[in-house]
């Protein structure tokens, strides 16, 4: 029961304080000028969505391919090493990833950018997606591979169109969970996209993101700004918990009526 106390308290406080803030203006408008009491977190929401999109494009394919490698070709010493390092990478402090990307991109170009942020987040998603992809591909019985190979389908085609498609609910679970994880990730963003009070303007300008907005607003003395942080926290928590609970509910009835077109 002890475990439930923090969760309950977090949810309660966030909802209690955040709910009054939420409005159409709140989720679309620019943050207000300090001292005024109008404004919203539009740039933060836009930035988080942009980062999720970019990271999905950059981080998920390598993650899935790594997972395929581990499951289909990784039953040897090299594969075991990769799997081990992958697990180590999963537990990497995210701030270290932030430093890596910042040192390579931000410091070198003197520019914070959405791309740098997305690269950092991709490094975080990669091992998560790889591991869940591997686990779900391994649950595909060999008879399915045999059937496809016996039809004279090439191995790569078999892996992508038959094996991966059979395992896809597991892969999608991993992808969604990793998206949930990165939408709340803050530390590497602090070092790569910096945070901003404005909407996205160019690929080499800082942008904002929900967790950064919470971090920046949380410690402000101004009650209106802190109120905004509660609202942002509520939206972030809704995104993260919806993804998590949704995935859990959806995977309960595996293989129900989900089918694929080739």
């Amino acid at each position: 029961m002890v475990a439930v106390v923090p969760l309950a308290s977090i949810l309660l406080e966030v909802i209690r304080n955040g709910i009054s803030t939420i409005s159409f203006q709140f989720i679309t408008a620019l943050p207000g000028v300090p001292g005024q009491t109008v404004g919203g977190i539009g740039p933060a929401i836009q930035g988080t969505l942009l980062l999720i999109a970019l990271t999905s494009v950059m981080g998920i394919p390598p993650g899935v391919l790594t997972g395929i490698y581990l499951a289909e070709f990784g039953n040897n010493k090299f594969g075991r090493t990769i799997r081990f390092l992958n697990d180590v990478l999963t537990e990497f402090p995210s701030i270290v990833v932030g430093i890596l990307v910042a040192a390579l991109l931000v410091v070198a170009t003197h520019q914070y950018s959405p791309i740098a942020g997305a690269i950092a987040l991709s490094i975080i998603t990669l091992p998560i997606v790889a591991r869940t992809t591997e686990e779900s591909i391994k649950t595909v019985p060999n008879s399915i591979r045999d059937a496809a190979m016996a039809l004279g389908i090439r191995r790569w085609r078999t892996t992508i169109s038959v094996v991966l498609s059979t395992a896809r609910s597991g892969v999608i679970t991993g992808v969604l969970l990793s998206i949930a994880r990165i939408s709340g990730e803050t530390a590497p963003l602090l070092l790569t996209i910096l945070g901003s009070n404005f909407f996205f303007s160019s690929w080499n300008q800082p942008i904002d993101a929900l967790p950064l907005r919470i971090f920046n607003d949380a410690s402000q003395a101004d009650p209106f700004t802190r109120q905004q942080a509660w609202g942002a926290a509520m939206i972030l928590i809704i995104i993260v918990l919806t993804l998590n609970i949704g995935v859990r509910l959806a995977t309960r009835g595996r293989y129900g009526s989900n089918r694929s077109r080739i």
Partner: protein
Amino acid sequence: MTVGLLEQVKPENKSTTLQQMERYKILTENLHAWFGSNHVLKDISIKIRENEATAIIGPSGCGKSTLIRCLNRMHELVPGARSTGRVVLDDSNIYAKGVDPVTVRRRVGMVFQKPNPFPTMSVYDNVAAGLKLNGVRDNTTLDQAVESSLERAFLWDEVKADLDKPGSSLSGGQQQRLCIARALAVKPEVLLMDEPCSALDPVATAKIEELIVSLKESYTVVIVTHNMQQAARVSDFTAFLYLGQLIEYGETTGLFENPGEELTERYLTGKFG
């Protein structure tokens, strides 16, 4: 216990002339196969006739499945598995250098022990999978192929209304016929069947056996079975394998009525295995 194989193959009686006119579809020559250091097939030389059904019988573990998996180069997919010797399909060795195993598998289809339709695909997609994933995109061609394959597999009438249903929603026997239709759709010349009825009930089994008899009109069928009655019912020729060796091979009726080897006789009369 090595047996002179070619002598055994020689027909002992009746319709000699007819059989000499038959073409051999597949020949194996000195075929050996291993799993790691486990020698599972020893020097198999066998000639399989075109448009006939050949049964391979023997106690479990005797190498039956391995033998047919060597005929479409599926054996080599198992880690640590390898083989030596020649397997001649029509006039060329499928193990020759430069032969793409994928094209071999398109000519030599396979049906497995347990029905294994692709679980996330519909009935239609299951049958079309082999063509689609080999690059056929034309819908008319696909529709025709699906319909004719399902008809040949005696399944069309049962599923023509439910082509969009998942393949895994069919009954076990229907799933197995779906797998046969899936194999037929890529237009193979040979159909290998690895104990296709062992997971099915008697009614479904009867249907598949009936199907096999009709299939051999257009295909060369090789069926592995541990059920001797089934071999007797569906096949024209029977090979008896024991501990990785070919003990006896001949016309089914001859072999069952008058086995040439003591081992065969003991197996057929149920003294072992």
